[in-house]
């Protein structure tokens, strides 16, 4: 447990992705089986036991420490598990032979079978045996609140790196594996065969596109590419397959491989033929595609009520076919997969699933015209839900990840406003000496005349050279400091105007301005523009109305 605790401790402080992987690989290499397998399970969220409630932890400490001192300490530390881990009294165990601290395997296997009544005494015993970091990790584990900034994907990538394998291979076999992953580690260390995935509905790593730049077109031949609309929904993978009994099982995955079937039970019956569709999840009302704002109402719901299903009818628009029954189609060129897809969708014959139409074009000029006006180029009334066009090489296989060349996305021009830099915060990792996170605002009428109200935060979009310039500006024009945050001068005639590009707007009660931006980034530095000429909140309000109609 102590070694796992050290790993968690270090990971919690490490901002860099590659450094996190280095730490994880080091741990997997030096730790024996069972323990490292359960660690991988803990990091990928694959462990299941009843979590301990915070009240139980609180009771344990107040039985052992002065409640007043606990109160002062909790106020100071601000985190229950950490406070208890730090102030847990040193155990005075009888005799010289103190029991060794529990291993991660001890903890996980005991918790699986432990009765609720036995939990407090068992936890107290472990807390006596562990050091501070061990206690902290134990409490994080048993309360189910790890929050150390490691995704399941990153943990799997590190496991793959241990055996110099492609993480996608692990992703493919993952649904068929279970803790403590003895077969996986044996294969990674070259001691065993590759584990076989017996899952009838595996996730296949998705293929992503690069954003195209104006300069790229010169080297590309329009005849090599097929184009289709880029729909503003949620990219998903819908997989159906036959289990050992011949029954069709269905799963819906997000683009990162997260199982989201439970959120869209209304789509499941439509996926009745074995196959794997890559497509976009949309809400359709009376045959019309709704905007992303509407689709969002269906996301992150704990309970999917019949009312929700009725008001937000879900739809799958199919881009690609990765598997047709038993056949893996990913090695085929796009044009052949497209033919399979058209046949498959026709065979499904379900109104909830349709083809993403292609956009015909003979030259880049023609496609540019279609992109500028999707309404008259075939998208019709659905044009508002189009965020650009996708270009796919006709001869390209379906490749995992984001290979450069076969797929391009060519988005519609983003929305642009001029805003004023208000606060700057230092970044993390390599950016820790730079002010690289910016809060910006626009003008609005306040009690005492015009004032700036924050409307968003951006931390990319600028070049390295621009970052240096802004960093210098922030350091020279700070009016106040609060820890890592600096207030930067923002007066009508003094301050920095940032051109901010964004994809959309939403109403947001959490923001003082009442609006929130999607995907904001800095597109230009307007050194030439005085802050008084920056945009006003009314401009955003108008954009919001034209985008959502509300």
């Amino acid at each position: 447990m102590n070694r796992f605790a050290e790993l968690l401790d270090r990971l919690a402080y490490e901002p860099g992705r590659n450094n996190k992987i280095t730490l994880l690989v080091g741990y997997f290499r030096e730790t024996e089986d069972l323990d490292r397998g359960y660690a991988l399970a803990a990091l990928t969220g694959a462990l299941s036991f009843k979590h301990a409630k915070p009240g139980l932890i609180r009771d344990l400490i107040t039985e052992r420490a002065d409640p007043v001192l606990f109160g002062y300490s909790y106020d100071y530390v601000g985190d229950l598990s950490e406070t208890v881990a730090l102030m847990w009294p040193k155990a005075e165990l009888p005799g010289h032979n103190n029991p060794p601290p529990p291993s991660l395997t001890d903890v996980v296997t005991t918790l699986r079978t432990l009765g609720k009544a036995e939990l407090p005494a068992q936890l107290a015993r472990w807390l006596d045996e562990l050091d501070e970091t061990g206690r902290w990790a134990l409490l994080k584990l048993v309360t189910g609140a790890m929050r150390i900034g490691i995704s399941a994907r990153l943990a799997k990538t590190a496991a793959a790196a241990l055996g110099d394998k492609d993480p996608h291979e692990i992703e493919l076999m993952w649904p068929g594996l279970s803790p403590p992953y003895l077969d996986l580690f044996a294969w990674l260390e070259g001691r065993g065969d590759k584990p076989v995935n017996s899952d009838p509905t595996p996730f296949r790593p998705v293929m992503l596109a690069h954003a195209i730049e104006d300069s790229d077109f010169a080297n590309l031949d329009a005849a090599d590419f097929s184009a289709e609309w880029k729909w503003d929904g949620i990219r998903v993978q819908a997989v159906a397959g036959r289990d050992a009994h011949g029954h069709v099982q269905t799963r819906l995955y997000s683009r990162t491989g997260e199982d989201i079937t439970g959120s869209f039970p209304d789509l499941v019956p439509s996926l009745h033929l074995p196959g794997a569709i890559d497509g976009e999840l949309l809400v359709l009302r009376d045959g019309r595609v709704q905007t992303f704002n509407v689709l969002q109402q269906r996301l992150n719901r704990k309970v999917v009520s019949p009312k929700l299903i009725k008001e937000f009818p879900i739809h799958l628009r199919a881009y690609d076919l990765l598997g047709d029954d038993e056949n893996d189609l990913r090695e085929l060129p796009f044009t052949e997969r497209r033919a399979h897809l058209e046949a498959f969708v026709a065979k499904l014959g379900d109104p909830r699933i349709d083809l993403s139409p292609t956009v015909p074009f003979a030259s880049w000029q023609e496609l540019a015209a279609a992109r500028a006006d999707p309404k008259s180029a075939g998208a019709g009334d659905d044009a508002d839900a189009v965020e650009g066009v996708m270009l796919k090489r006709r001869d390209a296989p379906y490749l995992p990840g984001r290979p450069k060349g076969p797929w391009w996305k060519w988005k519609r021009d983003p929305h642009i406003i001029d805003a004023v830099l208000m606060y700057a915060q230092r970044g993390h990792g390599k950016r820790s000496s730079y002010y690289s996170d910016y809060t910006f605002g626009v003008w609005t009428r306040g009690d005492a005349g015009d004032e700036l109200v924050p409307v968003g935060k951006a931390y990319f979009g600028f070049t390295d050279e621009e970052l240096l310039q802004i960093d210098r500006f922030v350091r020279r024009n700070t009016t106040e400091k609060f820890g890592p945050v600096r207030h930067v001068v923002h007066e009508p005639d003094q301050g920095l105007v940032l051109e901010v590009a964004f994809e959309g707007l939403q109403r947001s009660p959490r923001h003082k301005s009442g609006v929130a931006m999607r995907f904001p980034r800095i597109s230009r530095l307007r050194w030439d523009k005085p802050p008084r000429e920056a945009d006003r909140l009314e401009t955003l309000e108008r954009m919001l109305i034209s985008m959502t109609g509300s």
Partner: protein
Amino acid sequence: MRRSSPRMAIRYRGIDAYMSGMRPQDILMPVPAGLCCKPGGFHIDPVRPVERALITHGHSDHARPGHGAVLATQETLDMMRLRYGENFAGSVQAVAYGEEIRLGDVTVTFHPAGHVLGSAQISVTCKSRRIVASGDYKDARDPTCAPFELVPCDVFITEATFGLPVFRHGDAAGEVNKLLASVKLFPERAHLVGAYSLGKAQRVIALLREAGYDAPIYLHGAMEKITYYYQERGIPLGELRPARGMKKAELAGTITLAPPSATSDVWTRRFPDPVTAFASGWMRVRARARQGGVELPLVISDHADWDGLTATIAATGAGEIWVTHGQEDALVHWCKSKGLAARPLDLVGYGDEDEGETAAVTGEAQPDGEAQPVGETRKP
């Protein structure tokens, strides 16, 4: 900011009826300038210029320039001279540990506090009553200074920097091993260790040497003078080099000591993908470490932790405890729960030992570099 309180005078009226004759507050009394000893005609660690000052140790929040006469250990006087120049006081007198000095109606002696090189607790005896003002102290081992000496007394004045039971510092050698393991794991990166330039930096270097690390250790410009002074005093620190002027690639796999404020400054851009470490007792608390952007927190403190504070208080045999700078409330509560008379002393101006140290940076940081230290400032 901490409050300065006119309540002090009221708080003292009518207490200690159990003591006959001279009351402790007639001997030592908190005033805006610091702890004042009227019968001896001096102040201890005054924060404003006074006629006669007794200084516990060289940190800038305790040792300030501009006093008429200063009495302190030789090391503390030397450090003040290094920081403030030759004319930092009207006159100076060096005192050895244990040497008795008569001042007015009181006798004072200095005893090792174990905090930094030359640090002292000041014992003030008037008639038969003894008060010990311990300044900053620690009871943990430190190869760079004399160990803490327990001085039995009637009234013990203790700091409370880490006066919460969540602060347990553990073994500093273990923390240094953590640093060395990280250097081994990331040989292509530089390791920057934030540490106060007086005391902590030298202790970390000495601990690294004890752990067998014998490569050159690099220093930020603000560290050089004081570290070389430690070497002059016979403390072995191995080969030290200025980080200034080194090529980026040459700093891969090395360890550099820097003031905490420099580890998030533009100064760090000369290092290859630096791992930011910070050696401080505050690192025990994760939120504190994260606030400062620390990637490798090292729990190494020059102050006593909770167990050290409570054990020391009990061992002095003092019946009355005055608690200064830090988490006074919790420590006063603990004392009372043990049947000791205890009260907080609202002394203002301590606990900012790294404030202003960047000013001493020799042209390394930009003039607009961070004035706010990464840690060791108080939680608002």
